[in-house]
């Protein structure tokens, strides 16, 4: 068994984790170790061979592999240590980590700071309880993407896609480009779940989008043979007589992402039921001192650029913590989402420094005002559930806050 003491351990070598490790190393911390469970660094990005990455961060339009390779190169240049195919088994509240890989065997590690960057996982068929049989040929969109663009396999030739999230839309196009017949994209909500630019994927290939529909039965004993979809009424219930059975050999699910916080739960880190991720303060520090979190493990982001930025904040502050340069927040003001605001991250701010809040809305709205506390009001022309809403709190705006308040609501007026 290998026992080691490090300055910082980063759990997860995707966009968030690499940004955190780089920021930490650049801040002058020497021993940084990145633990990644996949055989390669980069998280989900090596399989995202489409463009659209880096428009904000690099002001360039990059593919996933291009985007992440810049960070991987930086990891190599800075000689940051990393271990791939390494599974973290346990995290203790005292910042001890049990991990394992084939080469080292068991690793018992301890660090002054930990950065959680485990990302998220896809919601499965089981979680939705879609009725029907249990044949082969049902994949989550991310799994299908990995199979196609990393492993080199085409799961099937007649494909129905459930959920119009970004990965679902992109996979609709990928299947079409592979020569597969994409029978449609089915979405429960009355509006698409993905970003506008990804809806182009459907238009380009003439793929039908069934809004306000749900999959109500999966057919086929060995392999998927067909899927019945039903139109939903206003309350979300299937309307009798409005079913349609679509023949297909493959069903792809893009029905939501869940921050992967089993390690956080094991360590007893406080989670936010609205995000599914840890409660963090403006330094991205969690409820356990010295444990930071960033990227999709905190909340599911829309753009990798934002993931990278949150990684940088977490990495920088983890470094400061190790170097003894991170004083406790002067004040801890809790932000409470209300009304159309589903969540706000970070959940705790000091009110002393300008920062950007990330938020998601429950339903689309236009010409809306986001109200923080009583006095801060920020105008938003259009807000939609698939897109993160950024709330920039400048020094000017922060001056309006009542310094006595321990809790502020974040809400929306239309």
């Amino acid at each position, binding site marked *: 068994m290998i026992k080691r003491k490090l300055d910082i351990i980063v759990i997860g070598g995707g966009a968030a984790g690499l940004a955190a490790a780089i920021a930490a190393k650049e801040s002058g911390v020497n021993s940084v170790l990145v633990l990644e469970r996949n055989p390669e660094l980069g998280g989900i990005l090596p399989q995202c061979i489409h463009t659209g990455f880096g428009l904000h961060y690099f002001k360039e339009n990059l593919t996933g592999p291009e985007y992440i390779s810049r960070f991987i190169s930086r990891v190599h240049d800075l000689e940051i240590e990393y271990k791939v195919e390494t599974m973290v088994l346990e995290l203790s509240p005292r910042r001890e980590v049990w991990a394992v890989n084939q080469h080292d065997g068991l690793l018992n590690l301890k660090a002054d700071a930990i950065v959680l960057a485990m990302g998220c996982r896809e919601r499965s068929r089981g979680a939705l309880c879609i009725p029907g049989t249990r044949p082969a040929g049902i994949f989550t969109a991310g799994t299908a993407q990995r199979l196609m663009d990393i492993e080199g396999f085409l799961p099937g030739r007649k494909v129905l896609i459930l959920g119009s999230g970004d990965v679902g839309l992109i996979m609709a196009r990928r299947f079409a480009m*592979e020569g597969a017949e994409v029978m449609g994209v089915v979405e429960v909500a009355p509006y698409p779940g993905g970003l506008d630019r990804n809806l182009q994927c459907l238009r380009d290939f003439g793929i039908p989008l069934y809004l306000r529909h749900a999959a109500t039965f999966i057919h086929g004993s*060995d392999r998927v043979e067909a899927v019945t979809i039903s139109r939903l009424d206003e309350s979300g219930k299937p309307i009798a007589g409005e079913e349609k059975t679509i023949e297909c050999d493959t069903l792809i699910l893009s029905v939501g992402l869940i921050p992967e916080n089993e390690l956080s739960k094991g360590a007893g880190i406080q989670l936010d039921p609205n995000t599914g991720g840890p409660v963090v303060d403006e330094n991205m520090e969690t409820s356990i001192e010295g444990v930071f979190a960033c990227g999709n493990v905190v909340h599911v982001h829309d753009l990798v650029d934002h993931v990278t930025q949150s990684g940088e904040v977490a990495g920088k502050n983890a470094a400061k913590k190790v170097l003894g340069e991170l004083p406790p927040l002067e004040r801890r003001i809790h932000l409470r989402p209300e009304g159309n605001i589903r969540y706000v991250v970070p959940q705790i701010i000091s009110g002393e420094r300008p920062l950007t809040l990330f938020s998601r809305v429950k339903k689309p709205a236009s010409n809306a005002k986001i109200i923080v506390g009583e006095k801060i009001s920020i105008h938003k022309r259009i807000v939609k559930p698939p897109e993160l809403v950024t709330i920039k709190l400048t020094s000017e705006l922060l001056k309006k806050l009542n310094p006595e308040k321990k809790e502020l609501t974040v809400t929306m007026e239309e």
Partner: protein
Amino acid sequence: MKTTVLIIGGGIAGTAIARELSKYDVDVTLVEKEKDIAFGGPTKANTAIIHAGYDDKPGTTAAKLCRRGNAKWGRLSSELSIPFRRIGSLVIAFNDDEISVLYELMKRGEANGVQDLRIIMGRELFEMEPNLNRKAAAGLYAPSAGVTSPYEAAIALAENARMNGVSFLLETEATGIIIKNGKVKAVQTNRGTIHTRYIINAAGLFADEVSAMAGIEEFKITPRKGEYVIYDKNLRSLVNHILFPIPSPISKGITVTPTVDGNLIAGPTAHDIEDKRDASTTFEGIEEVLRGACKLVPCLSARRDAIISSFSGLRPQPSTGDFIIKSYEEPYGFINVSGIKSPGLTSAPAIAEMVVEILRAEGLRLEMKSDFKPYRRPIEHPFRDFNPAKAEALIDQDRSYGHVVCRCEHVSEGEILEAIRRGATTLDGVKYRTRAGMGRCQGGFCTPHIIKILARELGIPVEDVTKKGGDSKVLLYRAKHLLIGDEKE
């Protein structure tokens, strides 16, 4: 091919009989139509409960074998390393009428020879089950009830039987029975004729059809569908015992039960259907399960997000209402082990002993083997209940145990390789032996890896790997196949 005893069906009854017979010096063959043990039906999809034995009417075969079977599970599970925990069960009553049913059940249990039954009321009930519906009035406590893993049990029984000389023929379906001069001669299968002196019909849902091949049409098997949902392990501490409602005339009702693996399971419904192959779930069925579960444990109503899977199983409901375990004057040599509905899993070890007695009575000479090996080593799961010293020792022996493939259940490549060495040839075969893919992501992350491991170890193309045999191929083509064809062509 020739054998002395041919068992038709590789479910819990067939494998228990195979293992029991493997103690004796006799030639035994088991045929299973599916690709693997326990793939067929009832064994892979049930509530996994070892019942105490108060449900069945005194005097029935089921009542007798259930109590006997229950008593055998402790030894069986330790000999074969089958996961099993005697966690006890509670039948919950909500009013005076239901409480009187508890007393009836207790009386019935006592008549069946079940000891330690007790009626619990008031504070003690909620101390045992803090999340139980506060409107619950009383519970019938049966400490001898337990939970196991039925497919792991069948696999363990089969492994041990094979170790002791039983032959297993998978993907071998009985299509006819040859009878000469009133005696069983052979079984025809899709893979040729197998000559045999005795036939044990443990064909589960299809037992009536196999029985009819022997000319015995005295019963019918109706598939009774039961739907279930499985909750995340995060909820493991919510329930401590097997919780039953008051039984209905046809079923023990929708239970909420901790599984032996630490999840919660709710179900089953009980609806008779026509098609023996229709193991589909339904919208109405799942809603019914959730209503039943929430009646016992109301806080589950807010935890729909914690459901990780739903499935349905078919119980082979016999028209006689009781297990049919018997031989016939004609055709001599044919033995039915049919209608093994609930409590079939509990009864399986007792059923096996009963079959041995029937064979003896039918004139088969059965002498104990001197070299019978009663023990079966389990597949080691070093990260399941993480024990650093044990994990390290295992990795030192075999580095592949250091490569965790299934993230949710922490299953290593070493465990998957061991499952394949023991006979897994499909994704489900690996899953049933290791739990890889049974966790909260339901195989999203590990499926591509396991497919590759299976293809490599079995020496087959990746496209030929199946979920559960037959036409259940997982990856149909290489990338670009539809655009430029396959290089191989």
